[in-house]
């Protein structure tokens, strides 16, 4: 990857607006999800190939560190989903509406929706984490 210099300069130094942020987040969330999904397929497959190892693997998911990572992961999956719908919606159904006000507005809406969906989910997950790992809430 000898050609990363310019993109990095751009991603870090170019003062792009909503569109650039949306693109970067979408890319990061996509790659992140894809990598996680790979691992997840493999560990789930243990139930068939090495069921003995499965419990150990799932044990990792129960650690506090992963619990926190999971919060992020869910955020990324929600964001990627909504933003993906946003992109697909414009591209497939209203391509003529791809202009600056709608692009900026729809991205902000995407962020708001993501937060709205994520906060309750995060609360539940945080509850589970605190409950199981720290014995709170009457654990």
């Amino acid at each position, binding site marked *: *990857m000898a*050609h*990363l210099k310019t*993109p990095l300069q751009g991603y870090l130094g170019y003062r792009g607006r909503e569109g650039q942020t949306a693109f970067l987040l979408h*890319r990061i969330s*996509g*790659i992140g*999800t*894809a990598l996680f*999904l*790979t691992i997840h*397929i*493999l560990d*789930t*497959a*243990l*139930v*068939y*190939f090495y*069921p*003995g190892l*499965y*419990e150990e693997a*799932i044990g990792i*998911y*129960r650690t506090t560190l*992963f*619990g926190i990572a*999971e919060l992020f992961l*869910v955020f990324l*999956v*929600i964001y990627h*989903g909504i933003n*993906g*719908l946003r*992109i*697909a919606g414009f*591209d*497939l159904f209203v391509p003529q509406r791809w202009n600056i006000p709608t692009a900026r507005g729809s991205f902000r809406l995407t962020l708001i929706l993501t937060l709205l969906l994520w906060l309750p*989910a995060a609360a*539940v*997950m945080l509850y*589970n984490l605190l409950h*199981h790992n720290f014995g709170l809430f009457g654990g």
Partner: protein
Amino acid sequence: MQLPDAIKEKPGRNYETIAWKWMRYSALLLIPLVWGHVLLQDILVGVHRIDLNYVALRWASLGWRIYDVLLLGFAFAHGVNGLRQVALDYIHNPRARRGVEWGLLIFWLLITGIGAAAIIGGVSALPE
């Protein structure tokens, strides 16, 4: 607007065009599949309650198996094609590109195969 065209070479079906459509149409399906999965596993059930028994219980139902096969097929194919797009953005040497594309193809087949085997095979009995 109907326009006559002198040059009849059509853009035709090429891989990039199909891939672009695929990313978008699969996206529409992925929302219920992926979100449903995440909602169920990570939030409603939670990792602390997931174990072999839980998996075995779920896969006892054919419906869930079909759901998971679909999820695996769509999400992973979508994801791997996404990774391909990202990789081709940054890798320009034609040979390296071909390498990446073949590598990802094999990676996709392999992982999908493993996943599919598990879903079809189900939970093996724990060796006593």
